[in-house]
């Protein structure tokens, strides 16, 4: 008996100390932090450690929770249009007869040809740059139709979402948000991305930054500037390789210039050729411009093109708008600039967005939750205060109703909360507002186990059993019930975790850890305390305060 009791005492002591160490130890420090003995013993350091160890959710800490939807169908439209353009170019180049290539719908390309003998050649040509298992090929009369298969369309949408996620991740990291979380969210066909930024109190700038579409292109331009789009279109005279784009340049001296230019449809280089882009202050005047440099492949292309086009014009096009037009004076290999009178913020943001590449499709914000740190602090204070009041009432009742045995329950309860918090730290679970509510409710559940046991012991005493055997039987009988209730709740928490989202999930984690802790404290710790009390009285103990 005594040996058994000692073992129990040691187990409980180890777990208690272990939990205290997990909870108050200096674990969550920055890299390179030198731990010293004072980290374990100075009260202020311990408090600081505790604050760092418990991960608070955004609703308590303050921060931004953003869900965005990638308009993935746009990726399909863009890809279809690219293939139409490429097909047209290739057919012309190889002298295959056709009268028209058009995108009949997103994911559907129709080629008209006067000669059915060309059908096979057209198919072969298109399938050199389009995957043949991704497009269904059919002919009717003189026309050839390529239709995107559903499977491939879904693949493209999925890729677009993944790519958007990678770009968002890159932009967020470069922006310097601390500990951001970027992940895909919901079902695959939803194309949603979740972004959480703790501590970002006002997400306006981040939001603008993420959405910014930055398609940078350098294209060959005609020298002449037109004042109206009609004039420009007239001069274009239906040339399918060129198009008219609006021109708006903000010069470094503060003046601006607008109009229209005729430019090539295909760019010489585009955003994917960029290696670096930065905001740089203008030499004269105010404001900033953006300087960029090119990757090796891009600079080769650009170098060759400029060498062959000295004296011709080139246009810097950003999102379909010409930002500047310049004459090529000599061979340019690896750098260029977007001139303008940007503010520092605009220039830095544009540089950042250009560096991360263009989004494959537009994104829309479909959910936004921001919590200011002061509100989170209010919630913590109120939640903790409510817990303390609730706990106090419970303790008072237990001591009043069960007398000395009530102390048992209180110790078990305290240990239960300690293990719960340590469990949260150990599994790096996040404590959220519903989580705090879950803690308050666990207090109720923990008390329930003790009440069950005590009532059982009382019943046995009433039935005339001697104290030690009443305690034994009481515990054994209550144990079955306690295990049944706890396991049922754990089973349902498991399903909450699997099928739930957000707060429901956090709630399930808190509940499960708490229930496991409760099983231990109610069954093992409380019983050991009874055993200890009884062993002190020796074999003769005939009364028990319950």
């Amino acid at each position, binding site marked *: 008996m005594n040996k058994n009791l000692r073992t129990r005492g040691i187990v409980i002591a180890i777990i208690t100390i272990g939990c205290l160490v997990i909870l108050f130890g200096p674990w969550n420090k920055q890299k390179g932090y030198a731990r010293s003995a004072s980290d374990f013993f100075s009260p202020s350091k311990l408090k600081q450690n505790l604050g760092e160890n418990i991960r608070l959710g955004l609703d308590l800490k303050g921060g931004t929770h953003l869900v965005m939807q990638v308009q993935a169908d746009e990726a399909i439209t863009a890809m279809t249009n690219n293939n139409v353009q490429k097909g047209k170019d290739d057919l012309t180049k190889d002298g295959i007869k056709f009268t028209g290539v058009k995108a009949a719908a997103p994911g559907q390309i129709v080629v008209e040809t006067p000669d059915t003998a060309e059908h096979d050649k057209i198919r072969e040509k298109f399938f050199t740059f389009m995957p043949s298992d991704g497009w269904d090929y059919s002919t009717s009369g003189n026309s050839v139709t390529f239709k995107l298969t559903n499977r491939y369309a879904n693949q493209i949408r999925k890729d677009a979402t993944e790519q958007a996620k990678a770009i968002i991740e890159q932009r967020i990291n470069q922006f310097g948000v601390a500990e951001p979380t970027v992940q895909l969210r919901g079902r695959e066909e*939803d194309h949603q991305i979740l972004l959480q930024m703790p501590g970002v109190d*006002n997400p306006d700038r981040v939001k603008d930054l993420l959405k910014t579409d930055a398609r940078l292109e350098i294209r060959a331009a005609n020298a002449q500037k037109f004042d109206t789009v009609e004039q420009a279109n007239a001069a274009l005279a239906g040339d399918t390789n060129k198009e008219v784009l609006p021109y708006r340049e903000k010069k470094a001296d503060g003046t601006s210039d607008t109009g229209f230019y005729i430019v090539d449809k295909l760019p010489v280089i585009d955003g994917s050729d960029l290696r670096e882009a930065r905001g740089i202050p203008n030499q004269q005047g105010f404001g900033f411009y953006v300087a960029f440099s090119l990757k090796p492949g891009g600079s080769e292309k650009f170098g060759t093109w400029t060498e062959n086009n000295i004296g011709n014009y080139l246009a810097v096009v950003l999102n379909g708008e010409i930002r500047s037009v310049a004459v090529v004076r000599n061979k340019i290999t690896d750098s260029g600039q977007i001139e303008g009178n940007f*503010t520092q913020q605009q220039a830095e943001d544009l540089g950042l967005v250009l560096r991360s590449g263009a989004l494959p499709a537009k994104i829309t914000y479909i959910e936004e939750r921001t919590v200011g740190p002061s509100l989170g602090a209010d919630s913590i204070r109120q939640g903790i205060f*409510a817990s303390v009041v609730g706990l106090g009432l419970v303790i008072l009742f237990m001591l009043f109703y069960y007398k000395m045995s009530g102390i048992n329950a209180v110790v078990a309860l305290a240990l239960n909360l300690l293990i719960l918090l340590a469990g949260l730290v150990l599994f790096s679970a996040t404590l959220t*507002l519903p989580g705090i509510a879950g803690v308050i409710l666990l207090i*109720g559940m923990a008390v329930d186990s003790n*009440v069950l046991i005590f009532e059982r012991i009382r019943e046995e005493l009433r039935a005339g059993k001697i104290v030690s055997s009443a305690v034994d039987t009481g515990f054994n009988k209550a144990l079955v019930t306690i295990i*049944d209730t706890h396991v049922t709740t754990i089973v*349902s928490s498991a399903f909450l975790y699997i099928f739930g989202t957000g707060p429901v999930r956090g709630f399930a984690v808190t509940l499960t850890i708490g229930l496991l802790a409760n099983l231990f404290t109610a069954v093992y710790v409380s019983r050991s305390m009874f055993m200890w009390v009884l062993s002190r009285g020796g074999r003769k103990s005939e009364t028990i305060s319950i």
Partner: protein
Amino acid sequence: MIEIFKSANYDFLGKKWFFIGLSWVLILAGLASVLYRSFDGKDHTNAFNMGVDFAGGTLATVKFRSAPDSNTLRQALEKQGVEGSKIIIQPVTDEIGQAPKNEILVRLPNEVKVERQQGQSETGAKALNDADIGKQKILAAISSFDDPSTNGKVDVNKIGSDKLKFELIEKAKLDQQSAEEAARAIVDYREKTRAGLIGDINEVKNINGVPPQIADSLGKDFFAGFASVKSAEAVSPQVGADLRNSAIVVTLVSCIAMLAFVAFRFKSWGFGIGAVIAVFHDVLVTLGIFSIMQWEINLTVVAALLTLVGYSMNDTIVIFDRIREMMRTKRREGLEKLSNEAINQTLSRTIITSGLTFLTVCAMLVFGGEVLKSFSWCLFIGILIGTYSSIYIASPFMLLWESWRATARTEKTVSQSRVASSVPGDNDSLTATSAGITPQMLAAAGISTSPRKLRKKGK
């Protein structure tokens, strides 16, 4: 020994039809409210008062220097093109012993336009604008409370630290590093010392970390606005529908899981069905009361509903466990009598546990603050209903199922026994089944009734 019940012996199950009837009344009252409120044509009442989590829309906590009356605020919002009758304005109650908060909860209806193609599900629709459209309108509306002379200046109350950094570089001509430090210091001061709202721009000049040379610029280019948004939730309708569907699925799935688990543990569908009917009953009654009172249902309330499901289940299992235990010793008494005795024996435990949990929920309701309010109400009702249902709903339905099964089984056994000669020991199982206790349940309770097993033991 202080005792609530010396020796409880109430006839709970004798009145089961009365209480089952009462529960129907509660459920039908809730249903009536749901139907009435869906068809009464009033805009401000709905079947359920769905929070922004499920209905879409915007919910913001706005802090004012001094709270305006709700009509002025409503008019300011109407000027931004929000339909006035659909705006909900609710002042946040002050905490005892704390400075007045001057905070107002503003809720706007959904302003996001959604494009839904034919055959597309509600959740698959495409949002045409960003979810924060409502938040922008609230920001614009509260800016109208500012003095017109502040036009064009930067409001230190409505700005994040990184945007403030750039404004300090542009306007106050600070260099990168000191601008960053100053912006941090100002936002920290606003959030930690001033609870989210700086009263006067002159306070900013004295903050530690703000360089003194920018005092002029602060007075000229910056100001402290009359109000700030402390928190905002903006949800597009299709996300709301998605969250709502997944909340329903999660509740159903976890109920089914519990049904299966309880049936498995007690080796009888009757116990599982009794427990799950009780749980459904609790959810229905609570939702009905939420509809009648028009309390808001949001994601936190769903967490509370799940908690009350857990509680009710806990209560029920304690009683069922006792019934199972008593079947070992007193199986000849009949299941109904046993159940009633079990309820009585666990009565003090039921009252103490529910009472204590109820106390903690009351503490939450009083001290837990605005955010936990609907959560606390849900549990407040849920604990009352859950305790009631584990006594008056779970056991009666378990009994109904078992006696229905027993009649079916007896008929079968009787018709069989006419053909086959009676086996010694068969009487035993017959009496047990007619009382509603099946051999499987007895086996679960550790009692063997099978004549074959008896014979084996005999060998």
